[in-house]
């Protein structure tokens, strides 16, 4: 059966849905709009802009081996999304040699389902390149890794990375019951003029929208430091918790908790910790979330780097005002060491928990 998946959401004139209006193609549009929301309504999970001190950012070591330059622990989006769309702003200073930017999943490391984005020689800075990477929806969380391989000459610079689930151009006829509220695609002939949207189909359209409402609150942080300049962003040697990050978060309607992942490391011996909380947690006297950093460093971003993907941890609490579409909260991140060694935050991703409904 054909199922219309439009390439854009088509607003319906409000008056066309009134009780006195004849049933016509309006309801077919409404059905198609639920397909659009299901297949195309999603936000980015990773937005990272790399930085450096007083010079352009450079990744890529020697021409014979790539290394992990950045990583993000994220939650796969589930059906109907099958691929990540990866965008990067890059520069290749070599006039003769191409470079490569590879993205893969820790759950299925290269060369399985990785994508290699060729970066042509002599590419000026802030040139946009893109590629796609298969999603492993069987994982609760997964780590997307960026590998950089420069050419024999020149440098590969990566300025910014964004990763978003790629919109689906078609949807399967099967029911998707992810987190309740089943999404049941509506076949075209079910909403033709001879088969107007019935009570049953209206309930189905509502359920489809609730499915999107529950499952697409999005992400608010998708950041990784870079391997080359890994000591530049967030660190402390303080024996007391030092606030390194505090930023506002716009909480979508219905969302009450934030899920998170982090990568941490500590030099030398002793303990190091990261602590996170929201203003809501402060206001209600709830304990902050504390995670331990690990010692040592041997290979950038591939070992001696502890990953927390909030399994077994608490979620960050947030408050939404039921009267508003979005409300605001604050996330605070603190680091603590032992007064002499250094604790580093190398990666942080935060996304909104599935909405209670």
């Amino acid at each position: 059966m054909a199922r219309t998946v439009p390439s854009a959401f088509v607003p319906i004139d409000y008056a066309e849905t009134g009780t006195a209006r004849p049933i016509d193609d309006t309801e077919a549009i409404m059905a198609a709009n639920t397909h659009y929301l299901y297949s195309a309504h999603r936000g980015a999970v990773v937005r990272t802009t790399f930085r450096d001190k007083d010079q352009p950012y450079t990744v890529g070591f020697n021409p014979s081996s790539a290394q992990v330059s950045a990583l993000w622990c994220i939650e796969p989006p589930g059906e109907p999304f099958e691929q990540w769309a990866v965008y990067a702003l890059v520069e290749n200073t070599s006039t003769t040699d191409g470079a490569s930017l590879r993205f893969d999943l820790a759950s299925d490391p290269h060369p399985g389902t990785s994508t290699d984005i060729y970066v042509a020689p002599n590419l000026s800075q802030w040139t946009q390149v893109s590629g796609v990477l298969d999603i492993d929806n069987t994982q609760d969380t997964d780590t997307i890794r960026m590998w950089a391989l420069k050419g024999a000459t020149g440098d590969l610079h990566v300025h910014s990375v964004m990763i978003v689930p790629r919109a689906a151009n078609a949807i399967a006829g099967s029911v998707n019951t992810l987190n309740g509220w089943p999404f049941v695609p509506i076949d075209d002939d079910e909403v033709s003029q001879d088969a107007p949207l019935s009570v049953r189909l209206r309930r189905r359209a509502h359920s489809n929208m609730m499915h999107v409402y529950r499952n697409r609150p999005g992400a608010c942080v998708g950041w990784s430091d870079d391997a080359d300049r890994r000591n530049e962003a967030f660190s402390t040697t303080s024996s007391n918790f030092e606030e390194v990050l505090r930023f506002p978060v716009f909480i979508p309607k219905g969302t009450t908790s934030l899920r998170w992942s982090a990568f941490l490391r500590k030099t030398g011996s002793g303990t190091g910790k990261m602590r996170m909380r929201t203003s809501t947690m402060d206001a209600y006297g709830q304990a902050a979330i504390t995670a331990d950093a690990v010692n040592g460093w041997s290979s950038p971003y591939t070992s001696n780097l502890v990953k927390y993907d909030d399994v077994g941890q608490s979620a960050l609490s947030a408050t939404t005002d039921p009267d508003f579409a979005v409300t605001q909260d604050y996330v605070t991140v603190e680091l603590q060491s032992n007064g002499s060694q250094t604790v580093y935050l190398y990666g942080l991703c935060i996304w909104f928990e599935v909405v209670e409904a």
Partner: protein
Amino acid sequence: MKKAPIYYKPGTWEPLNGQLPDGAHAGELDQFACYLATQRLSVPVDIGRAMTSISYFSIEYSTLLHVPQFCEHIALYIKANGSGTITVDTSDDAYSAKVEVNTKIDTAATPEYENATWHQLVMPMDSVTVDTESRALDVDDLDHEHVVTLTYTCPVNVYVWEVVPFFLPRRFDTTLPGGVATYYADSVPVGYWSMYDWDGSTVSDMSSAGNGLDGTKASSTAGQPYWDTSTSVLGGASLRFDQADLDAVIVPDDDVLDFSTDDPFTISCWIKRSTDYSGTVAGIVTKSAASSGVDSPYEGYALWFNDFEQRRPSFLLYRQVSGVEQLRVQASALAFADSDTDWHHICVTYNGNSDLDGVTMYVDGSSVTIGLASPDTLSAGTDITTATDLCFGGFINSATTNSRILPYAGNMDEVAIWSKELSADEVTAVYNSGAGVNLSNGIPST
């Protein structure tokens, strides 16, 4: 004329629960879908202290953004300190916006995160739009992707620590879309300034009359009057007028704005008084010079406050050649408490008879008692047309520089002028129980 916005649904959505789904709730299903499509998308923030180490020269810094359908503006909350102007450009039609940073850095060599402060700017985005007539799609590609690059230019000794983007919900209204709703006859305003723009210096005329009466912000301080996205009647923004800086909007003179004493016309606007006024009468919507030294003959019309606390709405038809000829009308009682900073609708209609009984003044949809503020000396048929520009927020005090006096303090939204006397029913519809209404295509009658 700037294309009128397509209005969808209220900005919030309420669960339908078990009410589904008779015919009446089909509209609510659509409302739910519109809410999802236009509001429910988050965007990850920029963290990592991206520009904090650059202190010796200005830099550029670029980042990617995935823009959803219907997004026309994005707000950027920038945590920064130092002193200078950050410029943000987008790859969308080279839109650009600036924000001033002026937060002290205690130690220039070691900028302190703790004393950085948040700054806000609003950026336009190219929206993926839908033509409601043909339902043809104007999309960048069929993968629904609209990826833009934001480029920040950061001057010397300005430190940016975090940038939090937020997709602003599309401007909402409960008005029925054009072409479906019915309207009062001949109710398209000759000029309608809904403060739809949200950024820049232009205040667009959104009337479908097509007179192109775009205004321009004017102030002794750059950027003012400010686009205030924290409060509005409609459209997500209003203009905030700072009295001390003589904030105003100037609409160039046009024949369609020239009314004489025998021409019926109506002025409507929403105001939100500030209690921070300096004690002067204040112009709200005026097309009248401030004195005979500005314009000769000195004449025109004005909606204004004829008291020092912005509490008494007044209306003026004026001409001064060899002597004063005027119809000066004011509300008999103060319309607002001194502490009142709520939004209020003020509307004055005039039927063209040159007398007090030809004027009706409405506050929040209800007519109020009025009286003469001075003897009526205006003769019927007197020409009061003037070349002076239309002014929101004051009276023009120089025909050459458009400098202002008698400035207004507070917010203003949804200014409209008709070349007819609105009926009481029409004014009620414009007031819309305090919610306001989109007037681009006229005054909705349903």
